[in-house]
């Protein structure tokens, strides 16, 4: 069974998913960050593949991507870093990256190498559902990876159903119009949006992301979803972390529990 499915079938508490950019702050920190997050009690991880032009990201993830690229990070290197990771952890791992580097690597090769490295799912925010269904769905599904799509306040009802049909594992609920790293408004409008999505009869679990930076945000969105993703806040912490990376990460995760 895919580890993402296993997680949502077995965990009753809200799922805490943490995003980090591969190759940041140091090129070879990837493994240490994964194992520390697992040890600290995070439930799922999203590993960001850095890109030169990340249009869906705010300044924090932009900066981490630029630094990771300067550090020499690439998809090939990431897969080498992940070799043998499944001997050490069973935490679900999702790769999140923009479509162009993935296509240059080659979708077929990317899926095969990701699967071999122990990856469970993919998020490609600028790959639209139509293109996916036409050209890539068969490749991704044959590899056993779960493709996860995003829904947003601007997603119309018919598209919502299409996204639910094509998504595997979970659906990424974007909390508000904006790039990553904003703040959670908690407005009535936002609450109405969460309730509307919740009532849409989706078959896949929902996990909220964008603007979730503390326990209060986490608890608020998890009233409507099965979990939430923390990204920019974690990257900010990594940027300021002292030499005790493992200790800093443990402290960060504990603050959400």
């Amino acid at each position: 069974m895919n580890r993402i499915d296993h997680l949502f079938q077995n965990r009753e508490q809200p799922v805490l998913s943490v995003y980090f950019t591969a190759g940041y702050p140091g090129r070879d920190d990837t493994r240490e960050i994964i194992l520390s997050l697992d040890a600290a009690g995070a439930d799922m991880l999203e590993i960001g593949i850095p890109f030169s032009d990340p249009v869906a990201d705010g300044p924090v993830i932009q900066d981490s991507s630029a630094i990771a690229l300067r550090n020499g990070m690439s998809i090939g290197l990431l897969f080498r870093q992940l070799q043998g990771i499944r001997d050490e952890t069973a935490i679900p791992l999702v790769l999140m990256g923009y479509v162009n580097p993935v296509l240059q690597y080659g979708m077929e090769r990317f899926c095969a190498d990701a699967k071999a490295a122990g990856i469970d799912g993919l998020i490609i925010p600028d790959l639209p559902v139509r293109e996916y269904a036409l050209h890539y769905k068969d490749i991704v599904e044959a590899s056993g990876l779960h493709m996860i799509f995003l829904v947003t306040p601007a997603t119309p009802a018919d598209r919502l159903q299409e996204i639910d049909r094509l998504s595997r594992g979970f659906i990424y609920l974007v909390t508000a119009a904006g790039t990553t790293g904003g703040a959670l408004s908690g407005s009535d409008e936002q609450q109405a949006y969460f309730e509307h999505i919740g009532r849409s009869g989706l078959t896949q679990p929902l996990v909220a992301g964008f603007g979730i930076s503390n326990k209060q945000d986490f608890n608020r969105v998890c009233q409507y979803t099965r979990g939430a993703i923390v990204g920019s806040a974690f990257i900010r912490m990594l940027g300021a972390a002292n030499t005790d990376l493992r200790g800093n990460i443990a402290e960060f995760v504990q603050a959400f529990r």
Partner: protein
Amino acid sequence: MQYTVDEYGYYGRFGGAFVPEILQANIAALKAAFRRYKDDPAFCAEFEQLLKDYVGRPSPLYRAQRLSDFYKTNIYLKREDLNHTGAHKINNTIGQILLAKRMGKTHVIAETGAGQHGVATATVCALMDIRCTVFMGATDIERQRPNVERMQLLGAAVEAVHSGSKTLKDAANEAIRYWIAHPADTHYIIGSVIGPDPYPEMVTHFQQVISREMRAQLKEKTGSELPAAVIACVGGGSNAAGAFYHFLDDADVALIAVEAAGRGISSGETAATIATGTEGIIHGSRTLLMQTADGQIVEPYSISAGLDYPGIGPLHAHLHISGRARFLAATDGQALDAAFRLMQLEGIIPALESAHALAALDQLSFGSQDHIVLCLSGRGDKDLAAYHTAAAERSAAAAFAYQHFSL
């Protein structure tokens, strides 16, 4: 027509709409509005009226006699440089602002490199009383002060972009990010035939007036609507798209696009996307682009800020792959040579972008009976500093050569 766009915004295998989910609804609404209004009589009448009375169209087709004598052929310049705001960019911003108004948008954003598209956007926003924000790389703001001041005088807010390399592609990234955060009230006026569907088709539509006029003017001046060749510079490719459009199905008309080679195609400092690019996705469109083997986008270079873009419109990628258009490249130096020649022979100071199209004349040979149309896409007012520097360097080099080799 094998060169038109399909229902999903594809020219052959290039195009599409690779944008985050949050913008899918926006571009769907834009596409619906474009479809609804592009042939709407009231919309077209307003558009044509503004092109005539406000922009000053039709722009003249000028037979450049001394330039023709120099190249021993017949050269006609399509004078987009005489348009209000000094370039072809205004054709597109007029079309899009009319669409934005009909869509009830209250805020317009744009990206700009050299500032020409930013000025054209600020201009139509002032005209239509719509709030305007122009994203511009911090590096470009320093390089293009006069255009920054023009935009500000016209009431636009110029937002300095500090991300990435702080130039055109980063300005486009930042405009997209702003649009993601403000999808409901904001319209994004993209300045070239790039970006997600429907932008390449829509911007081509608003620029096709260039070749429509060319055909009528050629008929009047030469007796035939069809020239031997049409030449235009290409960065994203909006003036070339406009200049080629009504000749696409006339196979006997050679379509020649000229990219900016910068310091040379193999120098590592170039903006020649067709010459050096590979297939990928940039700013929402599958096209040819300058990238590393890992799919990271490469920062381009050209003396011309308007051609300094690492991608190219999907229409042009298709015209290249299908062989319908021929793509040449001109270096900074070749463009400057061509610009100085036009100044001296015709008394016209071209934009550095258009100078690249002029440089193609040195790479091609035409018959004495051929009629050649060249799109002079913009005027050189914004480039005076670059021309001054180049002229000073050349006279210093000439003085040096005179001293050392002529004695």
